[in-house]
């Protein structure tokens, strides 16, 4: 051990004493009862120091591990129970100290220490002192890091003034107040000492008090007498000493920028007239002051907002018009731009539009349009009008903007040109027409053509022949149309030129809808007449027609081979006329598959590569086949349908069941060719001279109706005959009946049907006869017999037999049937024949008879 004096009064460096003699200590015995002892306990060191830590264990064990914040550390073993660890360049971890501990691996005994590592005390920075009132000095500094720990409080600061020998312990870390002495001390030498357990740091400054005056912030800054173009600002300052003067700086800001700056020397009250102000404008005035005797620092700023008063608008509104005819009347849409804030001089309340007829004296028409409207519409007649437009605010109107409208719009058709767009906009130029132009106007629509036009215009001077039209609304790929008007001395506008252009041309975004027609074996026609070239993102220069022929085939003559982006090869034809919207693809092969695709192109490129449309050319004869066979098939179908619908008529005409001699075509043929007077013989008209009767030797297998017996079972002893009746129609009595052979007639049927008689067999009971006398019974019998006959007719005999249809004039009375037995005399009238199955030969006669009951009943009239 050795020692040294540590006192500020003793100049450094001091001198160490001699070392004491060595003393021997028994470490183990000093441990007490703890099995493990780690030291030094609660050591306080500075960051970056090297620290040696030892442990002494009461039990001699090798399995003791030591850790620094949980991380094992390795040291030097001094003997069996003592080890030392050197920690180099220790760092600050926490205010609660760094934990270092050792423990027996298995026994659980634990010993440890807390090493308090303090941050290094820093020298105070930016130490300075100043006064606001020459009474109190305020010293400030940047303290740097806090060195406080559990073991050590934060560093303290002491202010020491060497001339007065006074010092004060500062209560705050970064500032301290010092009372200025009453003895008018002007010069001060301050030393700031920062101190903690480990270190002291100090910094000194020397200054004159009057050179460290930092005035307090001015107060009560207000505008006074605020007008449209000037205002007076007033403010106050805190006095410094007696009769001290302050230099104040008054600044005027508009939209955040200082536009005026004025210096004013004052004692307590300040005042300044600000001029050249804009009407109806918000300003900010701010003031700061400094000690005049010796400038040290400006005081803090004080600010105040104020608004100047309004004034009448200083400029006429920028007016333009758009003319159109509505229902035969010229209609003028007037547009005007809102006045800029600089020119409006206040809030615009309304616009006045005064319309004056120039052709004939009339009353002025005045329209008042409330703001913020920017347009109005006027319907005029064919006269010329002068229109005045003024903007009004609270104070008054603006100068008038005058425009003259001619009632006769004239022929304003002019040639259209193109204009190139650049990054800056469209560079539009024109050629003056007349020498008395007072100006030019370029108008355009800000949006695309398919959107409602937002009319824009630009006024230009009379000597201007070009301008750059720029707008934030311009977009690439949109066509903009510009119109250049010349304003005459009479303030009338005449259209000079039209220009169209793109800010930046783009490739077409879509392809035309192509219609294919006139497909032949060697050609087809493509057309895209609906494609509008006006609404494309660039000037359409033409079209590319792509054609993919079948594999191995050469391109048609008008095409050239090209490679598509997807590396497929196809043929391409270029149409360099944007108005040509049809194209005939020729020289094709029959029965081949072709794919085509049409795309427009601009100066930038062509449209998107869409899908190809596939077509197949027909063979060379297919069109012939189509032209002949299809109509034929159609005609056949028509004929078949007609035949089907008229089958009954055809049947009667061509193959009736019973030929009608009067309807026979043979008759007409004979009539026309041989003997026009030839007629069909009517039996009634004939007076028979002689009748040859021929016996029919064999019987017919005719089933007789009502007896349920086959005719073969009935022996006809009488020959088949026809009764010949007298020609007199009024003959009513029975008479001789002459029979002649008619092989087409069935005698049995004739006996029954032609006379309406039912032959009654002797065995037939009377009751069997009765029911048949009524039509109902007859029908039943017929049906029953028909059904039976269908079952009994052999297949080979189920053909038609002609049944004689002889009707007696009296036999038609059905009431006489049961009472009047068949009388052959009544059978002389020839009736139309009908075809019925053999078994139904007894059906009543009818021209279109069938076996339906309705027909049978209806035919009853024939009996009368």
């Amino acid at each position: 051990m050795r020692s040294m004096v540590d006192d500020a009064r003793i100049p450094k460096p001091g001198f160490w004493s001699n070392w004491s003699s060595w003393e021997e200590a028994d470490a183990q015995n000093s441990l007490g009862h703890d099995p493990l002892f780690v030291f030094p306990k609660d050591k306080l060191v500075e960051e970056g120091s090297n620290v040696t830590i030892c442990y002494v264990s009461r039990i001699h064990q090798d399995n003791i591990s030591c850790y620094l914040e949980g991380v094992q550390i390795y040291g030097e073993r001094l003997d069996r129970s003592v080890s030392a660890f050197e920690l180099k360049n220790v760092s600050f971890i926490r205010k609660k100290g760094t934990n270092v501990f050792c423990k027996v691996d298995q026994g659980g005994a634990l010993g440890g220490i807390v090493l308090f590592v303090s941050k290094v005390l820093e020298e105070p920075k930016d130490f300075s002192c100043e006064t606001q009132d020459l009474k109190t000095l305020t010293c400030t500094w940047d303290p740097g890091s806090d060195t406080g720990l559990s073991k050590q409080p934060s560093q303290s600061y002491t202010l020491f003034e060497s001339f007065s020998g006074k010092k004060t312990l500062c209560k705050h870390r970064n500032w301290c107040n010092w009372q200025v002495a009453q003895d008018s001390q002007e010069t001060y030498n301050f030393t700031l000492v920062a101190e903690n357990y480990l270190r002291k740091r100090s910094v000194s400054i020397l200054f004159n008090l009057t050179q460290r005056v930092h005035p307090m912030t001015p107060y009560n800054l207000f505008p006074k007498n605020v007008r449209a173009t000037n205002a007076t600002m007033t403010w106050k300052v805190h006095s410094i000493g007696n009769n001290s003067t302050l230099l104040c700086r008054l600044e005027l800001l508009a939209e955040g920028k200082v536009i005026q700056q004025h210096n004013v020397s004052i004692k307590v009250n300040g005042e300044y007239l600000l001029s050249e102000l804009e009407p109806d404008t918000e300003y900010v005035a701010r003031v700061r002051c400094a000690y005049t005797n010796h400038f040290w620092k400006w005081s803090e700023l004080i600010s105040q907002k104020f608004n100047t008063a309004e004034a009448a608008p200083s400029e006429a509104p920028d007016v333009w018009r758009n003319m159109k005819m509505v229902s035969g009347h010229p209609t003028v849409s007037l547009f005007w731009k809102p006045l800029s804030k600089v020119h409006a001089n206040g809030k615009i309340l309304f616009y006045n539009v005064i319309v004056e007829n120039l052709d004939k004296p009339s009353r002025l028409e005045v329209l008042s349009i409330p703001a913020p409207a920017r347009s109005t519409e006027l319907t005029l007649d064919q006269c010329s009008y002068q229109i005045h437009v003024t903007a009004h605010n609270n104070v008054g109107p603006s100068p008038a903007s005058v425009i003259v409208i001619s009632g006769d719009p004239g022929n304003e058709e002019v040639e259209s040109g193109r204009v190139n767009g650049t990054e800056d906009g469209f560079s539009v130029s024109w050629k003056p027409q007349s020498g008395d132009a007072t100006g030019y106007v370029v108008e355009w629509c800000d949006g695309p053509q398919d959107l409602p036009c937002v009319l824009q215009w630009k006024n230009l001077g009379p000597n201007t022949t070009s301008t750059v039209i720029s707008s934030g609304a311009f977009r690439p790929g949109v066509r903009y149309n510009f119109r250049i008007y010349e304003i005459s001395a009479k303030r009338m506008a005449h259209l000079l030129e039209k220009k169209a252009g793109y800010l930046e041309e783009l490739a077409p975004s879509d392809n035309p809808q192509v219609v294919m027609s006139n497909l032949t074996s060697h050609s087809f026609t493509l057309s895209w007449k609906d494609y509008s070239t006006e609404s494309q993102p660039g000037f359409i220069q033409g079209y590319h027609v792509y054609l993919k022929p079948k594999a191995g085939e050469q391109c048609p003559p008008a095409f050239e081979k090209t490679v598509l982006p997807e590396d497929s090869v196809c043929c391409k034809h270029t149409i360099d006329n944007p108005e040509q919207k049809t194209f005939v693809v020729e020289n094709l092969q029959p029965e081949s598959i072709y794919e085509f695709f049409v795309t427009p192109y601009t100066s930038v490129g062509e449209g998107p590569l869409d899908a190809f449309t596939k077509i197949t050319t027909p063979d060379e004869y297919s069109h012939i086949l189509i032209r002949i066979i299809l109509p034929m098939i159609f005609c056949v179908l028509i004929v078949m349908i007609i035949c089907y619908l008229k089958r009954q008529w055809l049947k009667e005409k061509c193959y009736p069941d019973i030929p009608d001699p009067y309807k026979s075509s043979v008759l007409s043929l004979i009539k026309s060719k041989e003997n026009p007077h030839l007629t069909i013989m009517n039996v009634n008209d004939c007076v028979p001279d002689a009748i040859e009767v021929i016996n029919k030797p064999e019987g017919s297998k005719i089933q007789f109706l009502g007896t349920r017996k086959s005719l073969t079972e009935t022996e006809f002893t009488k020959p088949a005959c026809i009764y010949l009746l007298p020609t007199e129609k009024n003959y009513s009595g029975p008479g001789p009946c002459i029979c002649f052979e008619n092989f087409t007639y069935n005698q049995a049927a004739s006996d029954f049907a032609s006379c309406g008689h039912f032959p009654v067999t002797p065995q037939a009971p009377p009751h069997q006869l009765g029911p048949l006398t009524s039509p109902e019974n007859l029908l039943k019998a017929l049906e029953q017999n028909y059904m039976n006959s269908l079952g009994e007719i052999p297949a080979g005999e189920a053909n038609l037999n002609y049944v004689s249809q002889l009707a007696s004039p009296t036999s038609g009375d059905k009431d006489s049937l049961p009472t009047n037995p068949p009388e052959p005399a009544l059978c002389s009238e020839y009736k139309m024949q009908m075809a019925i199955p053999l078994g139904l030969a007894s059906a009543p006669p009818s021209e279109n008879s069938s076996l339906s009951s309705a027909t049978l009943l209806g035919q009853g009239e024939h009996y009368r």
Partner: protein
Amino acid sequence: MRAQRMRRTPLSVILGLLFLSMAATSKCLGKYHELLLQLQRQADLMQDTSTLLDPYIRIQGLDTPGLKEHCRECPGAFPSEDALRGLSRQGFLRTLNATLGLVLHRLTALYQDLPEAQQLVGLNIRGFRSNIHCMTLLLRSSSEAETPEPTQPGPGPTPPPTPPSDAFQHKLKSCRFLRGYHCFMHSVGQVLREWGESRSRSRSRRHSPRRAPGDTAPSGPCRGGARRMWPFRRDRRLMPRGHLPR
């Protein structure tokens, strides 16, 4: 973990202020069940290590392997759960009040280490003691004839007179003390919960040491380590009817 603590902090403040205001106005809940429920909830809140122990371990740098496991409760520092269960209700409340008084005193010494947490926990303990006072009054009014039970001597928190320890030992001791405090509050919560359960049981089993099946009390902060039975007198007086629930 921090977020969880942040969520709990306002709740602790609210509860603490509530209980403080109750104590300040000296108005006690006259309903046994509500008071008991409040005590149970307070005990659950105070056994939560995130309010005190966890911040302490983190601030002191004890959350490192090798040190963490040495922050376990000192046997005998606080009455064990069995010892608490063996007390009569009046005795239990007196012991609880005395123990928490010592805890409050000890926490004041930890103010430098845990300024914010210590303040909140202090409020909680004061509120809890207020409710203990109310419960004591409620039990006393319902059993006027009950023989006054001597106050049990203060439990372990009073440190034995030992030479001043170094900072390392102080850290470990404080850590163990805080863990013991949370364990103790866990045991208190268990006993209070049994008070509520005992109403539905027979009187003879009012202080059954067994836990009720399906007990959903929060798991306590105490893990492992034999807890010494606190030698309190087993006084199992019945509560008079009419005031205490069955």
